[in-house]
């Protein structure tokens, strides 16, 4: 034996526990000395009886090896060995003997002795003997480990089979489909006992809902010894049903013979239920004609949206798309609001806050030219549902009604005063053809037209002039003429005219036999007609006189009476609270035709009263005034003059502001201020470019309106007086001479 093997051997023998039995002390001492090279644990017994006693005191497997002499007093080695082997027949015993007789030695082996060594003990014999013992031990250990492994595997297999039986819905049939095995799980799901199933055909659980074609396919497949997988609705013993996903495969015995079929199944009843419910819901949603969709924290669309969504977004699929992008890609403000709001909803657990955030999200949006109403609903698990409704038709109807109302207003306004309308039309046509070269006059006239058209409820042209005014603010006359050309006022005006002519007839606007007739000639002509009529009493002539009378409506009252609805409208648009404007004066008072431009220019004064004169309700309450403002318009005839008095109870004119503005626009020089009387200061309101209001509104504030009044008044040799009282209002008194009629 080489050194290395010896070393390995000693390593192993050192671990052994040994009982050494020897009666001769000298032999014992010598042997122990030798043994100590190999052994660390040696107990000594002085004869067989002592050895047996010591052996019994220890646990059965305590000693790995017993080394014993044979010839000993009290009890010899053979007897002791026999006794020990009775206790533990696997005990290893090594006998040291002087015998050489093979029969004797064979007997030793026969009674169960592991090995023997001849006396005197020689080292090489001893090593050989130990090696043999260790070899036995090694083999035994290995076998033990093997056994442990197998028993563990067996245990696992048992558990597996057990759980297979409990949890897997499994069955086997013979080649004809008769059940030969059914697991516990199968019993539970089908409601049948295994004993009720064995020997039965598998069709015992067939549900009438299953098409027979499905089973034909199944048999076709498995008869070819192929695997069949499919969803099957099965009939339970109690008449109810369950759904399984079945995997059916051919089954072979240990010899590889095809003896039947084996099936395992997954219970998919709840999955099927959810699927059916989902289908039902989606079906419902699809038929509702509304877009239903949902998304999570990542804003990505979930599967399961209604068909209408695809119509609304005009897409083939929207799954996984970003909802915010889908809805608001063309409106960054709404998109931002939506994303911010949804994130806030997702990041709070407070239901009330969620509801508040959702209520602030965009409620309507135009998607692919369709007006879409958007409703939001928070579901659990951070999912938000959106309901989209196409309200295009509702909206169209609404705007149609609004438009119709607007048209109706325009028609009523135009038709109720045809002369006036034709007048304006001709003036405006002329204006467009011959745009004034003086910038101030141009702006002033344009502004007056806007006021007049607004009064006539002609929306297209009014809005268009408003846009034009904004475009030409700081432009030179050359630039303005170019802008005019591009803007094409005529075309826009024709749009309004087209609506009017489509309703009132082509004649209404093409009738251009209109020319100014002075009031006296008119009266004379009328009187003459009436005289003829009284003599002839002709029906036709009678009608002519009625028509004739209609041509003339230059009663001051009716000319001024166009302003009350205008003031009301202005007040509404500026959010001012104003009592209805009343016109007070003799309703039969007639005025010369040439007064008309002046009366029309008064629109600027009324605008000014509403916008700059009357304060907001807040201000009025703060100054302990009536919350509602009052604007009055009175007129009367005094000798050869007509007086028109227009007043308001607003804040009055702030002459200091007027002065500052006048200086800043170079209307007056700073050194002129001290020369100006209070009245002269007030008259600055009639200067061009002098509005004290910073904002330019649709109706006033461009500083050209008021000057129009003054220039019209001057044409009539009229006069103005202004009574101004800060915080109490302002009163304009216009005096118009009528003595030089026909001038």
């Amino acid at each position, binding site marked *: 034996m080489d050194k290395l093997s010896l070393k390995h051997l000693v390593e192993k023998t050192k671990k052994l526990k040994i009982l050494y039995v020897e009666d001769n002390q000298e032999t014992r001492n010598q042997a122990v000395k030798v043994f100590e090279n190999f052994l660390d644990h040696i107990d000594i017994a002085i004869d067989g009886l002592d050895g047996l006693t010591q052996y019994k005191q220890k646990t059965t497997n305590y000693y790995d090896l017993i080394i014993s002499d044979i010839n000993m007093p009290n009890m010899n080695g053979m007897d002791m060995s026999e006794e020990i082997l009775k206790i533990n027949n696997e005990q290893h015993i090594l006998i040291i003997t002087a015998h050489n007789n093979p029969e004797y030695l064979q007997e030793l082996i026969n009674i169960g002795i592991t090995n023997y060594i001849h006396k005197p003990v020689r080292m090489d014999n001893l090593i050989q003997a130990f090696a043999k013992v260790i070899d036995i031990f090694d083999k035994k250990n290995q076998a033990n480990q093997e056994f442990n492994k197998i028993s563990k595997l067996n245990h696992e297999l048992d558990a597996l089979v057990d759980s297979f039986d409990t949890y897997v819905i499994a069955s086997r049939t013979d080649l004809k489909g008769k059940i030969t095995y059914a697991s516990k799980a199968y019993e539970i799901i089908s409601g049948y006992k295994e004993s009720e199933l064995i020997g039965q055909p598998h069709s015992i659980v067939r549900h009438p809902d299953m098409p027979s074609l499905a089973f034909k396919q199944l048999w076709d497949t498995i008869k070819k010894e192929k695997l069949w997988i499919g969803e099957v609705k099965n009939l339970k013993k109690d008449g109810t049903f369950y759904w399984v996903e079945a995997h059916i495969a051919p089954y072979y015995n240990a010899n590889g013979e095809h003896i039947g079929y084996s099936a395992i199944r997954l219970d998919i009843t709840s999955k099927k239920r959810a699927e059916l419910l989902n289908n039902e819901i989606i079906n419902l949603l699809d038929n509702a004609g509304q877009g239903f969709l949902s998304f999570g924290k990542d804003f990505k669309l979930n599967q399961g949206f209604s068909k209408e969504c695809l119509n609304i977004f005009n897409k083939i699929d929207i799954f996984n798309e970003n909802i915010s992008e889908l809805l608001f890609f063309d409106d960054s403000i709404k998109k931002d609001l939506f994303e911010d*709001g949804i994130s806030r909803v997702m990041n709070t657990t407070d239901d009330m*806050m969620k509801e*508040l955030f959702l209520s*602030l999200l965009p409620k309507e949006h135009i998607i692919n030219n369709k007006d879409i109403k958007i409703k939001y609903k928070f579901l659990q698990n951070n999912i938000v549902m959106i309901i989209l409704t196409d309200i295009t038709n509702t909206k169209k109807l609404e705007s149609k009604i609004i438009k119709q109302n607007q048209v109706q207003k325009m028609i009523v306004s135009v038709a109720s005063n045809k002369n006036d309308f034709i007048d304006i039309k001709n003036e405006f046509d002329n204006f467009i053809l011959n745009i004034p070269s003086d910038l101030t006059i141009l702006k002033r006239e344009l502004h007056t037209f806007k006021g007049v058209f607004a009064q006539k409820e002609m929306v297209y042209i009014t809005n268009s002039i408003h846009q034009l005014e904004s475009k030409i603010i700081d432009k030179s006359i050359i630039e303005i003429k170019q802008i005019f050309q591009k803007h094409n006022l005529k075309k826009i005006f024709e749009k309004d005219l087209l609506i009017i002519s489509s309703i009132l007839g082509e004649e209404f606007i093409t009738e251009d036999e209109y020319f100014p007739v002075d009031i006296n000639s008119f009266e004379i002509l009328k009187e003459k007609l009436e005289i003829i009529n009284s003599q002839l009493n002709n029906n036709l002539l009678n009608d002519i006189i009625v028509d004739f009378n209609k041509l003339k409506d230059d009663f001051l009252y009716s000319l001024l009476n166009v302003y009350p609805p205008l003031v009301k409208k202005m007040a509404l648009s500026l959010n001012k609270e104003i009592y209805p404007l009343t016109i007070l004066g003799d309703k039969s008072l007639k005025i010369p035709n040439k007064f008309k431009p002046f009366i029309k220019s008064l629109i600027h004064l009324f605008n000014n009263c509403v916008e700059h004169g009357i304060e907001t*309700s*807040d201000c009025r*309450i703060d100054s302990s005034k009536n919350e509602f403002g009052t604007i009055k318009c009175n007129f009367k005839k005094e000798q050869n003059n007509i007086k028109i008095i227009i007043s308001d109870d607003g804040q009055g004119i702030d002459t200091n502001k007027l002065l500052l503005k006048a200086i800043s626009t170079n209307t007056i020089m700073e050194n002129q201020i001290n020369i100006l009387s209070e009245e002269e200061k007030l008259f600055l309101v009639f200067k061009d470019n002098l509005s004290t209001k910073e904002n330019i509104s649709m109706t006033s504030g461009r500083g050209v309106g008021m000057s129009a009044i003054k220039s019209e008044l001057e044409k009539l040799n009229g006069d103005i007086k202004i009574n101004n009282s800060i915080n109490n209002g302002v009163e304009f008194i216009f005096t118009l001479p009528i003595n030089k009629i026909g001038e």
Partner: protein
Amino acid sequence: MLNIMIVDDSLIIRKTLTTELEKMGHNVVATAKSGQEAIDLYSKHMPDLVTMDITMPIMNGIEALKRIKSNYKGANIMMITSHGEEKLVMDAISSGAKGYILKPITQEKLENVLKKIFPQLDN
């Protein structure tokens, strides 16, 4: 009946709110014209509810809300807002506002918000 403080720089809104709230049987205990004034008056009156305008000079409604909330966690504050202020309203709600009304103010809107903030109120 609730004790209510109205915070708004507009007199007309203050008046409208006072009238409507009193009609509903509530008690307007204080009115403030600015956020700063609101903070001072809150600790003095400890109202059950504050109506808070969002855009006010000196100190806006959201700042005032935050300051009141930092001292009085349980303060009930609702915002008075206009169209286009949705983001600000969201900020206010994140900072603890309990509700909001979009102008113009109507009794119906007020009733709905109050019912949500004070579910225990029976009308």
